[in-house]
């Protein structure tokens, strides 16, 4: 059942509309979903647009189990996902060409994302669906091979690709294109970019967080916000799982009425039929919770996406701290070099230095040495000035670009979560209606007793 695709389609629709005033209909992958009728948004108009999504229809169509040898030459079973792409213009012309497709496993998606994280540190990079099942309530299995989990992951991966492909900056990345089109050589190409070397070390980043002096306040506020977002979404997910557990229990116990009514009806004359039928409705009531909770998982998945998004947001803020810190360090370094130069040339000691002390104690060095030192310092100062210039540019560029994307993210988050909450309310209404229906049916039977 591809119910998640319905959600993905609406996300697609929104991503297609992002930043544009004119609404553009994105085609639905109707051949892959069970809900053909419901997704029916016909492709009327495709505009020239900056995002890949406009030019290409992307979907993660299937999942399959494979066996193979892993890195340490051990046998393992893993799941692969089929990515299908079709050119939009062909679809616009009414043709229906066969899609290009390739298989990817989760670890390759991870590799792509890591590449994007390093290459676009000023972008809030869309998250992947969770690696392992978390926040499960008891009926759901925490097994990665469980078909429901695999299905939800398939939807999550598709969502990831759609988000990336519709992002105004990420959409142009070549590696992304390769990922979608070149099955076998892609990994080599990624490694060749050398992105792994560019990654900031954890230690560096952490140290910067503690030692940076003047980070941009907006980014500090954003970082604080990302903590809040993470905390609330994870609390919500945990509480929701507990609620689901309890609700399951309530519904299932009602099934016992079904059995006892049936037994009781056997000893009754006029009351028998009514009791028996009522019992069946109680059974139906008890069974109805399964579908209800399955549907709610989609809500949980939406919350999870933003739980992980919070992490990505924090990463952008930390990158700012790092660039700012490096700028501060470079500036500091330049100042100290200039100071040294000044001291050396004027003889005025402003700050304590061992050289100064030894000079005092043992006499100053020879003029040639001094000249050499001054020369060196001047070179270093020149380098230092270059470094400060570079760092300043780096920092400012990061701030500028990052702020744009943070704003974009904020708007997206507000829209998405608002919609998720409305959908949640819709689900609750549906659950109430079902409950009323069941009990009304039972009531009718009771009245016939």
């Amino acid at each position, binding site marked *: 059942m591809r119910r998640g695709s319905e959600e993905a389609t609406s996300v697609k629709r929104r991503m297609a509309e992002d930043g544009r005033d004119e609404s553009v209909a994105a085609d639905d992958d109707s051949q892959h979903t069970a809900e053909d009728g419901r997704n029916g948004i016909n492709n009327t108009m495709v505009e020239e647009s900056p995002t890949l999504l406009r030019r290409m229809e992307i979907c993660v169509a299937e999942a399959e189990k494979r066996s193979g040898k892993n890195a340490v030459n051990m046998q393992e079973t893993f799941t692969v996902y089929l990515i299908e792409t079709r050119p939009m213009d062909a679809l616009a012309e009414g043709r229906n060409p066969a899609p290009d497709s390739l298989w990817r496993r989760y670890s390759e998606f991870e590799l792509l994302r890591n590449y994007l994280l390093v290459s676009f540190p000023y972008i809030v990079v869309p998250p992947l669906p969770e690696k392992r099942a978390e926040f499960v309530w008891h009926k759901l299995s925490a097994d990665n091979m469980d078909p429901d989990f695999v299905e939800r992951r398939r939807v999550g991966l598709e969502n990831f690709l759609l988000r990336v492909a519709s992002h105004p900056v990420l959409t142009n990345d070549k590696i992304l294109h390769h990922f979608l089109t070149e099955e076998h050589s892609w990994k080599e190409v990624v490694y060749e970019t050398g992105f792994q070397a560019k990654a900031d070390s954890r230690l560096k980043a952490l140290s910067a967080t503690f030692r940076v002096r003047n980070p941009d306040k907006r980014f500090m506020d954003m970082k604080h916000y990302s903590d809040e977002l993470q905390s609330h979404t994870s609390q919500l997910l945990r509480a*929701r799982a507990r609620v689901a557990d309890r609700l399951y229990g309530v519904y299932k116990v009602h099934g016992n009425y079904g059995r006892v009514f049936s037994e009781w009806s056997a000893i009754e004359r006029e009351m028998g039929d009514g009791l028996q039928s009522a019992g069946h409705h109680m059974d139906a009531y008890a069974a109805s919770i399964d579908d209800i909770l399955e549907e709610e998982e989609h809500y949980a998945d939406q919350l999870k996406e933003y739980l992980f998004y919070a992490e990505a947001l924090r990463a952008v803020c930390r990158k700012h701290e790092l660039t700012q810190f490096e700028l501060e360090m470079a500036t500091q370094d330049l100042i100290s070099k200039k100071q040294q130069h000044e001291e050396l040339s004027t003889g005025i000691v402003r700050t304590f230095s061992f050289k100064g002390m030894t000079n005092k104690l043992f006499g100053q060095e020879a003029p040639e040495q001094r000249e050499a030192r001054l020369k060196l310092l001047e070179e270093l100062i020149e380098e230092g000035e270059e470094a400060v210039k570079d760092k300043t540019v780096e920092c400012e560029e990061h701030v500028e670009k990052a702020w744009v994307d943070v704003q974009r993210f904020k708007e997206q988050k507000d829209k998405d979560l608002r919609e998720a909450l409305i959908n949640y*309310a819709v689900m609750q*209404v549906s659950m109430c209606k079902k*409950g009323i229906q069941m009990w009304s049916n039972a009531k009718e039977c009771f009245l016939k007793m």
Partner: protein
Amino acid sequence: MSVGAPRALASSGQKPITEILHPLSAAEEPLSVTVGGDKEVGLTNGTPVETSSPASTSSLFNRLQLDDDLEADVRDPYADSTEMRDLFVTVDDPKKHVSTMETYITYRVSTKTSRVEFDLPEYCVRRRYQDFDWLRIKLEDSQPTHLIPPLPEKFVMKGVVDRFSEEFVETRMKALDKFLKRVADHPVLSFNPHLNAFLTVKDLNKRQGLALLSKVGESVKHVAGGYKLRARPAEFCAMGEYLDTFNQKLGTIDRIAQRILKEQSEYLTELREYGGVYSSWVGSEEELRRPLEGVAGCVTTSCGALEDLGDNMSLDFLPVLREYVLYLESIKNVLRKRDQSQAEYEGRLEAAILRKQEDRTPMPLEVEKCQDKVECFNADLKADWERWQSNKRHDFKQLLTGMADRNINSYEKSQAAWESLITLLQDKQTEDKTSETN
């Protein structure tokens, strides 16, 4: 229906004159009497009645007839056709009494009747649970061949249930009202002198004492035994089996209902915390403030609805189940007594036959009396059993329908809250969209 002249104000025994209601007094008790103001007050055969004499028994009767007809749309099959009813009882108005020895609740028991067995057409007394219990014991003793309706449970765990809470008192009162109505509607029990005393005597305690003494001798008689039953008629066997199975099923239903209450209560706890998380999230958001607050609000509403559901089930559903379990026990006792009575007859008959064979003494009167007793017992029991079955059907129909209604109601409250949230949020959305494009 007898339309007689109102009785003269006689000294009706123990009551002082000031407490006797004047038969011409239009003192309408503020009970559930909802007299249809627009309805034509008339006799059931269509003859209009002069409304100028409100105390005439016919108009009195008609007013009361309307009163009871307006209750429950499921017709109480226990009631004979309404033309026959001439005794109406109601239990209401609970009041707490605090004395040095104890604290207890009394209820007002109001009676309206045209029966000759009663001195007055109306009575109003206060009774406590003890008094109802006394009445029931008296009825059981004096009418052993009949099925006596159950009382609500006597004992309540003091730690668990608040005996003086509004809901508990309300539930108990409704059960006492039902008990009394059932007795009043029974063609035999309603004429029992103990019922009469219960309904009319101001201070029951004195009578209780006297009554107890005089009744001791009688109850001892019923313990006569030692006879073994030969052949129980099939229908009474069936009754016994039915009661056993039914008892089992009621027990199961009780356990299920309790389990559901427990699960619902745990669900409620988690749900409250869940709502709290939404509320606390509001603090760090701007645009999402309204939807988050809205969801928190709906969750709170759902919690309230669920709490009400649980309370209602505790107070209305479970006690009725337990009443019926007590009822079954008392019926089984009656069946046992019937068996005993039959056994006694068979025993005596056998002895008499043997004696007759020996010395040709005629069939002693005692044996014939026993036979009569058994036959009366069987007839009474059969009639009461049928009545009980249809009453039980009505009661359980009401009970289960009530349970369904309460659940529906709970869902409806929740649904309304969520739907209004959706409307609110979607309106805001279209509002935003139009302001964007403007």
